C-alpha cells in the first residue's frame, strides 16, 4: 500500500470520483436505452472504482456514497426489467458473470434486493446466498462497506413478523440469522483491520477503525428493530450469538464498542431479563477493555429504567439484579488483574448508584458494596491516584444524595472503612461534604452510637492526621472547617437526656483528641450543648428525685469541668474563663452552690495565673463581675469571698481608668434588685467613692504628666452610677453627693485646660436631660429627682 499525504489521498479520491462518474454516465445512458448488457458492463466498471486500497475510510465512504446513489438507479432499472418480463433468476445469474468480485457482489446485492421484492424465491434463500457470497471480500475496508451495503438494501426486506416477506418458509428467525451472520462477518473484518499494514501506523489505523465502528454497530441496531425479536428470542438466540462474537474477537476496541452498543440499542427490560448472560460475558473480555465503563453504562441505563416508574421495580427484584451485578463486578475485577483501582471504585460507585435507585430500602446492599470495595482496597495503602480518590468521593457521597440523611450512612459499617483509604486531604474534604450535608438537611443525629460513627467518619476534621502534614494549611480554611464542626456539634441532639449525655460523652472523647488547635473551636459548642442539657433537666424534673436518674446536672458539670480543663493545656485562658463563668451561671440556676463556687474558683485561678495581658484582664474582670452579679445561690460567706476577690482584682488593674471602671462596676455586686439579702448600700457607696478617688488620681496624673487635666468622662460615668443607685433607692447615695458630683464635673469642664470631649459632653447632657425628664414626669421617681437641682 502506498502511503502518501492527505494531498495524495485527495488526488486519488478525485480520480476515483471522476472514473466513477464517467462510468455512471455510460451506465445511465444504457439504462435510458434499456440496454441491459451495457448497463451491466458500465455499472461493473463504475463499481471497480471501489476496489481502491488507497483511500482512508473517510474518503472511501465518500466514494461509496456516490456509488450507492448510482446503484439506486440501477436497482430501479432492474425492477423495470423484471416487470417487462426479464427473468429475475436469469438476471441474478447474469450479474455474477462479472470477473471482478467486488463489482460482482455489489451488483448481486442490488439484484438480490429486487429478487426478494419479486418474491419469486423465499427471501431467506436470497439473503442467505448474499451474505454467504460476500465472504469473498476479505479486505476489511471493502468488505465492511460491501456488507454495509447489503445490510442497507436488505433492511426493509427482512422476513420480520408482520412484514410482507414473512411466509411459511420465511420466518423472523431467518431475518435474525441473516443479520447475525452479517454482523459476525463485519466484526471479523473490522477486528482484522488492525493487523494490516505497517506497525508504525497502528495508531492511525486504530483511529480509522474507530471511524468505521458504526458500520458494524448498525447491525445490532437492525437487530433491535426487528419486531419479531422478542424477549425469548433475544435471550435464546440473539444475545448469546452476539456475545459469542464479541468475546471471541478478542479485540479491545470492538469489545468495548459492541458491549456498549448492545447496552444502548436493546430495550431495558431485555437487559434486565438477560442480565446474567450479559454480565457473564464481561469477565471474558480482554483485560484492556474498559469494562468498568461498559458496566457503568449498563447500570446507568438500568437505574434510569428503574427510575422510570415504580411498576418496573418488581422486575428488578425478580431477576435479582443486584446480586447478579454484584457478582459480575466481582468477577470482572478478579479477571482484570491490572485494573486500576480507580476503575474498581468507579464500578462500585455505579453499582451503588444503581442500588440506591432500585433497592431504596436495602441498606445491607449498600453496605455490601462498600464492603467489597474495602476488600479490594485493602492492601493497597492510601490512595494517591487522584482519579481513584475522586471516584471514592463519588461513591461515598452517593448515599447522602439519595437519602439526604446522614443517619443512613452511619448505619453502614463499611462506610468508615472505605474512608480509611483516602488520603488525608480527601478525607477532610469528604468529612466536609458530610458535615455540609448534615447542615443542609438539618439532620438531627440522636444516638451516641451514630455520633460515634459520625465522628469516626469526619475524623479528618477533628483530629490531626497521623503523619504530620507539612503543607501549610490555610488558616482561613481551617477556621471554616472548625466552625462547621462546631456547628455540627450543635446539631447533635437527643430528646432523651440520658442519650444526650452519652452523646456528649462521645463527642468529648473525640474532640479531646483534636489537638490544641482545634479545642478552642470544639470545646465551646460542647460546653454549651451540655449546659443546654443541664437547663433542660432543671426545667423538666423538679419532681423526679435524683436517685434513679443517672443523668443529673451534677454529673454533667463534672464532665464539663474536665472538658474545660482540657483547654488549660493550650493558652486560651480567656475562653476557659468565659466558659467557667457560663457554667457557674448554669450551676446557679440549678442551685448547686458548691459547683458554682468551684467554677468561680477555677475562673479566678485562671485570672490570677494565666491572664496577664492587661486588656484581657479588663475584659475578664468585667465578665466576672457581670456573672457574679447574677449569682444568687451563694451563701454570705462564699459571696463575700468572691466579691471581695473581684473588687480586689478590679483595684489592681494596671491602668487607672480601667481600675476606676472596674471598681464602679463592682458596686453592682452589692446591690441586687431581686434579692433582698444582697443589698448593701454601704459597700456600694464605698465602691463608688473609691472609683471617684481613682478618677481624681487619674485627673492629677494627667495634669502632672501632660499639663492638662484629663477627661471628665470617668466622673460622668460615676455620676451615672450614682444616679442609678439613687434611683434604686440606695439610702447611702444622697442628693448632696450627686449634687456635689455634678458640680465637680461642671467645674472640671469649665477649666481651661480641658480638652473638649464630645462624647463626654453628650453623655452628661443626656443624663441631665434624663433627670429633667423624670422631674417632669412626676410620680414617686419624679419626686426623688425633684430633690436634685441642676
Amino acid at each position, binding site marked *: 500500500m502506498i502511503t502518501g499525504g492527505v494531498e495524495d489521498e485527495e488526488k486519488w479520491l478525485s480520480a476515483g470520483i471522476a472514473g466513477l462518474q464517467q462510468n455512471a454516465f455510460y451506465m445511465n445512458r444504457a439504462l435510458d436505452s434499456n440496454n441491459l448488457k451495457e448497463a451491466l458492463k458500465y455499472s461493473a466498471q463504475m463499481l471497480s472504482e471501489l*476496489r481502491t486500497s488507497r483511500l482512508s475510510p473517510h474518503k472511501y465512504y465518500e466514494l461509496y456514497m456516490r456509488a450507492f446513489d448510482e446503484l439506486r438507479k440501477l436497482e430501479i432499472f432492474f425492477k423495470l426489467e423484471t416487470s417487462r418480463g426479464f427473468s429475475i433468476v436469469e438476471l441474478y*445469474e447474469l450479474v*455474477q*458473470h462479472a*470477473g*471482478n*468480485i*467486488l463489482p*460482482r457482489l455489489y451488483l448481486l446485492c442490488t439484484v438480490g434486493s429486487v429478487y426478494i421484492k419479486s418474491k419469486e424465491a423465499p427471501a431467506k434463500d436470497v439473503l442467505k446466498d448474499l451474505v*454467504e*457470497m460476500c*465472504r*469473498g*471480500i*476479505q*479486505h*476489511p475496508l*471493502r*468488505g465492511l462497506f460491501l456488507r454495509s451495503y447489503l445490510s442497507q438494501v436488505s433492511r426493509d426486506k427482512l422476513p420480520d413478523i408482520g412484514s410482507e416477506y414473512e411466509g411459511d418458509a420465511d420466518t423472523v428467525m431467518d431475518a435474525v440469522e441473516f443479520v447475525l451472520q452479517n454482523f459476525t462477518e463485519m466484526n*471479523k473484518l473490522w477486528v*482484522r483491520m488492525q493487523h*494490516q499494514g505497517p506497525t508504525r501506523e497502528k495508531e492511525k489505523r486504530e483511529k480509522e477503525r474507530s471511524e468505521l465502528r458504526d458500520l458494524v454497530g448498525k447491525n445490532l441496531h437492525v437487530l433491535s428493530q426487528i419486531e419479531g425479536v422478542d424477549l425469548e428470542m433475544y435471550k435464546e438466540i440473539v444475545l448469546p450469538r452476539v456475545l459469542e462474537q464479541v468475546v471471541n474477537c478478542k479485540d479491545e476496541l470492538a469489545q468495548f464498542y459492541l458491549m456498549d452498543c448492545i447496552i444502548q440499542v436493546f430495550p431495558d427490560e431485555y437487559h434486565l431479563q438477560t442480565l446474567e448472560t450479559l454480565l457473564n460475558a464481561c469477565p471474558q473480555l480482554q483485560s484492556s477493555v474498559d469494562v468498568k465503563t461498559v458496566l457503568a453504562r449498563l447500570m446507568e441505563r438500568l437505574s434510569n429504567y428503574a427510575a422510570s416508574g415504580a411498576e418496573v421495580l418488581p422486575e428488578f427484584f425478580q431477576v435479582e439484579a443486584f446480586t447478579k451485578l454484584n457478582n459480575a463486578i466481582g468477577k470482572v475485577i478478579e479477571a482484570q488483574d491490572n485494573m486500576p483501582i480507580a476503575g474498581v471504585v468507579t464500578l462500585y460507585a455505579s453499582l451503588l448508584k444503581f442500588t440506591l435507585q432500585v433497592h431504596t430500602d436495602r441498606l445491607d446492599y449498600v453496605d455490601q458494596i462498600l464492603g467489597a470495595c474495602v476488600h479490594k482496597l485493602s492492601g493497597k495503602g492510601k490512595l494517591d491516584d487522584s482519579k481513584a480518590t475522586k471516584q471514592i468521593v463519588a461513591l461515598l457521597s452517593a448515599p447522602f444524595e439519595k437519602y439526604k440523611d446522614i443517619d443512613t450512612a452511619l448505619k453502614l459499617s463499611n462506610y468508615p472503612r472505605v474512608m480509611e483509604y483516602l488520603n488525608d486531604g480527601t478525607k477532610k474534604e469528604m468529612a466536609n461534604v458530610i458535615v455540609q450535608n448534615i447542615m443542609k438537611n438539618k439532620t438531627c443525629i440522636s444516638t451516641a452510637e451514630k455520633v460515634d460513627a459520625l465522628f469516626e467518619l469526619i475524623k479528618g476534621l477533628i483530629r490531626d492526621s497521623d503523619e504530620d502534614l507539612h503543607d501549610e494549611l490555610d488558616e482561613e480554611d481551617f477556621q471554616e472547617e472548625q466552625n462547621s464542626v462546631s456547628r455540627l456539634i450543635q446539631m447533635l441532639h437527643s430528646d432523651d437526656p440520658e442519650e444526650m449525655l452519652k452523646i456528649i460523652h462521645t463527642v468529648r472523647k473525640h474532640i479531646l483528641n483534636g489537638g490544641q488547635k482545634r479545642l478552642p473551636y470544639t470545646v465551646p459548642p460542647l460546653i454549651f450543648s451540655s449546659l443546654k442539657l443541664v437547663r433542660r433537666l432543671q426545667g423538666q424534673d423538679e419532681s423526679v428525685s435524683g436517685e434513679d436518674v443517672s443523668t443529673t446536672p451534677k454529673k454533667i458539670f463534672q464532665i464539663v469541668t474536665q472538658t474545660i480543663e482540657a483547654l488549660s493545656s493550650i493558652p486560651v485562658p480567656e475562653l476557659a474563663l468565659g466558659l467557667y463563668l457560663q457554667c457557674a451561671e448554669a450551676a446557679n440556676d440549678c442551685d448547686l452552690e458548691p459547683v458554682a463556687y468551684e467554677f468561680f474558683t477555677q475562673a479566678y485561678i485562671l485570672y490570677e495565673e494565666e491572664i496577664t495581658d492587661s486588656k484581657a484582664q479588663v475584659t475578664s474582670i468585667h465578665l466576672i463581675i457581670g456573672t457574679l452579679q447574677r449569682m444568687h445561690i451563694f451563701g454570705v460567706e462564699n459571696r463575700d469571698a468572691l466579691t471581695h476577690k473581684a473588687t480586689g482584682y478590679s483595684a489592681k488593674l494596671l491602668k487607672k481608668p480601667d481600675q476606676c471602671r472596674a471598681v464602679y462596676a463592682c458596686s453592682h455586686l452589692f446591690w441586687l434588685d431581686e434579692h433582698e439579702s444582697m443589698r448593701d448600700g454601704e459597700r456600694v457607696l464605698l465602691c463608688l467613692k473609691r472609683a471617684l478617688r481613682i478618677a481624681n488620681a487619674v485627673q492629677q496624673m494627667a495634669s502632672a504628666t501632660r499639663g492638662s487635666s484629663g477627661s471628665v468622662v470617668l466622673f460622668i460615668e460615676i455620676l451615672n452610677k450614682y444616679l442609678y443607685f439613687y434611683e434604686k433607692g440606695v439610702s447611702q447615695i444622697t442628693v448632696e453627693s450627686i449634687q456635689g458630683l455634678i458640680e465637680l464635673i461642671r467645674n472640671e469642664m469649665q477649666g481651661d485646660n480641658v480638652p473638649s470631649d464630645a462624647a463626654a459632653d453628650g453623655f452628661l447632657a443626656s443624663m441631665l436631660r434624663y433627670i429633667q425628664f423624670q422631674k417632669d414626669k412626676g410620680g414617686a421617681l419624679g419626686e426623688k429627682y425633684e430633690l436634685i437641682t441642676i
Partner: protein
Amino acid sequence: MNYIIGAFKPACHISVTFSDGKSRKQVPLKKENGQTVMVPLFQSQENISGKISVEPVSGKKVEHNGIKVELLGQIEMYFDRGNFYDFTSLVRELDVPGEIYERKTFPFEFSTVEMPYETYSGVNVRLRYVLKVTISRGYAGSIVEYQDFVVQNYSPPPQINNSIKMEVGIEDCLHIEFEYNKSKYHLKDVIIGKIYFLLVRIKIKNMDLEIRRRESTGSGPNTHVETETLAKFELMDGAPVRGESIPIRLFLSPYELTPTYRNINNKFSVKYYLNLVLVDEEDRRYFKQQEITMYRLGDTS
C-alpha cells in the same frame, strides 16, 4: 460483382440446401477469413440429406465428367496449413458425365453418418466438417463448392461425477483446502465450491479461479502444447485469515468452452483445467491446477 468475378468463375453456380434446413438449428462458425457465418448444426449418426442445384450461368452449358458430393471430416494443423487430414470421407455420385444446360437439382443423402468428433477451432488445430461438391471437367479444371456445417455431440450426464477436493499448501506458509462440487461439468454448468484456509502466513492480495484450455497437437516428440486462459474469475479480494471459507460460484455459460477432447484421431487433445491462483502482496503467485472434464449436455429445451 458477380459479373466481374463471373469472368474468372466457373460457368455455373452450385448451391447446397439441406432438406431440413429451415428447421435445423444454425450456429455461428468462424471462417478462415475471419467472417462468421451461420451454418447448420448436426450431430453424429444423423442423416445429412438435401439438394444440390447446379445452375449454369446465363444459358451456357456445362460439360462435365461427373458430379459428386463428398462429406469430409478434416483436421487441419496450422503448422501444416492447407493440408487437411480427412478422417471421414463419404462420397455420393450425383450425375454421370454429361452436359448441363439449365438448372439441375440433385438430391443427396448420407444416412446415419458417423461423426465422432466435434467441430473445433483452436489455436493450432482445426477440425471441420464440410460437404464438398465437385463437378469434374477434363480440361478446364473441376468446379468445387464447399458447404460447411457444424457437428456437436451430446453426452449424457456422467454416471460418476465426484467432487474435487484437495488440501494443498506450502509448509508453514499457506494451507488451503479447496473443493469443486464436480469433476465433470457441462458447458452451461456452474462450478460451486469453496476454499477453506487452514493456515495463512502470507499476505494474500487476491484469489482468482482461472479456466485454462490446454490444446496439444501432434504426437511424440512433435507434441505441441498451447495453453489459453479462457476465464479469470476473481474469487476473493483481500487477505483472509485462518478459518475463513470462501465460496466459489462460477457460471460457465459466458465462456466459449468446448467439451474435453481426448486424443482426437491421434492428432490432438483439448483439455480443461481449473487453476486456483493466489496472489500475495508482492505479486507472487501460488497456484494449483486441477483438470476438469467438460462435456456437452443434450439440449433439453
